[in-house]
Each structure stands twice: as C-alpha cells, then as structure tokens.
C-alpha cells in the first residue's frame, strides 16, 4: 500500500483571542521589528500514513484533524497531503 505524508495546520478561529500571539507580537517590537500588524500562533503536525489510496488517506487525516488534532469549537484546520513513496529525495 502506498505511503502518504501529511502536514496539518491548526489555528485559532479568527474570533478567538490569542494572548500568546499578542505576547509574541509585543516581543517582536522589543526585538526592533516594526510593522507587524497581526501575529497568531497555531500548531503544525506532521504525520506519515499508509492507506490504499490518496482518497482514503485524505479521509483519515480529515477525521483525525477534526476529532483529535483540532477542537473545532475554537480552532480551524487545514492540511497538505502527498504520496511520500514518490519523493525522489527519500
């Protein structure tokens, strides 16, 4: 069965205050970086999965993202998926 690599990105919904992002934004100013209007912190999760097809891998990662990796009450998620067997650099 083919192997797939997925990168899941989890971010707080735009309506949810991100105090950690606000704190990082104020630290950026102390670093001397000006002009940052918005800074929000999320999570990136990488995983390898074996599945019979890309469609099956996609379905699995969707369920995983929606039910475990993110809490849809406060977070949004997206992901990228590609067949890792085809990577020329592996």
């Amino acid at each position, binding site marked *: 069965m083919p192997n797939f690599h997925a990168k899941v990105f989890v971010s*707080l919904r735009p*309506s*949810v*205050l991100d*105090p*950690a992002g606000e*704190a990082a934004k104020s630290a950026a100013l102390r670093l001397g970086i000006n002009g940052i209007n918005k800074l929000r912190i999320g999570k990136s999760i990488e995983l390898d999965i074996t599945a019979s097809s890309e469609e099956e891998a996609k379905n699995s990662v969707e369920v995983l993202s929606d039910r*475990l*990796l993110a*809490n849809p*009450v*406060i977070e949004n998620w997206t992901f990228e998926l590609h067949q890792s067997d085809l990577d020329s650099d592996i």
Partner: protein
Amino acid sequence: MTVGIVVFPGSNCDRDVKWALKDCLGIPADFLWHESRDLTKFDAIVLPGGFSYGDYLRCGAIARFAPVLDSLIDFVKNGGKVLGICNGFQVLTELGLLPGALTRNKDLHFICNTVDLSISSYRTDWFANYQFGENIKLPIAHGEGRYQCNSDTLKQLEDEDSIAIRYMNNPNGSMGDIAGITNKNGNVLGMMPHPERATDSLFGQIDGAKILKSLLSN
C-alpha cells in the same frame, strides 16, 4: 452510595477530592482508574483537576478517549451526576458533554487565587442549597480557564438557564464571566473553581461543601 473519582495519568486533585468527600464530609468515595469501563458501583462521578495526559495537544484532548469516558456518556444519559472540576471541566467540553471550550487565560498567567463568584442559576441540585443571591468564594488554579463559545451557544446557555456560576471580577477573560455551566438536564456540572479546596474551615472557606454534598442528593 459511593462517588467515583476518575484518576487519569496526570490528575493531581484526585486525592484532594477524596479527602474532601470522605474525611471532611463523610461521603463514601473511591478512585476509578481511567482504563476501567465499569461504573456500576458508583452513584456519581467526579473528574478531578490536574493535567490529564500532560495536557498534551490541548487540555482534555487525549483524556477524552479514555475508556472510562465511553461509559461516562451512558452514565450521563441515564441521569447520573457528574462533576468536572478544572481539568475535569476541560475534559467534559472536549467530550461534548458540555458546550464550548476552555482556552488560555487572557493575560497568559497561571492564576492561583481565591475568587468571588455569583450563583447564576438555582435550577439544578448543585446550587439548590445555597441562599438566593448568595455570593461565594472558591479557589481557582488554572492557566487555561477562559471559557469560549460562539454567540449561539452562549444564548442557548442563557435561555436554558445553564450558566451556573460567574466570576464577580473576571480573572481570565471568560465569555459572560462564566466560571461554571451545567448541561440542559442539570446532572452534569463543569466548573473551573475547586470546591474540594473549600470544604474545611481550617482553609478559611467552606463554600465548596454544598456542591460536593449535592453529588449524592436528589
């Protein structure tokens, strides 16, 4: 009549709850390991505070899949009383037994303090024994206690009279000053403050005692 106290890896208020129930209030209580599915010997369940599964991913996100919680869903459906304290409240929202979510405190601080609370609803057993209009003091200790939900959920909570307690001086940015909510049936209560730390007059407060006593009252 016995209260079950769920012990997850990383729970750290489980023994406090047992001490408060048994030693302070004389209520029979026993620990319940997170891998157990058998709730038959228990008449009420407490999900205690702490850092279940290290709070990895999100508070309560991993605990939600513990075998004991499969049984807890049926227990709640059958009208069993469940109290989630602090991390236990976070687990109840992740599990979907209570709406909304608990997120990082507005000012990022871990807050360890005693706070003034107003009782918002006397609809359920949990607060039926408090005086109408009574304000209470309970300890809080959390970094992620900011209650968050969408406006439809907030309206539903208000319409169903399910907002149990509110902060008098909101310490963490919770929507609607919410410190604790119940489900519609009233048998599930989730709250960030720790009633088990206010059951002995030596500690200066006993405002939590009536909440714990109501675990076994009908």
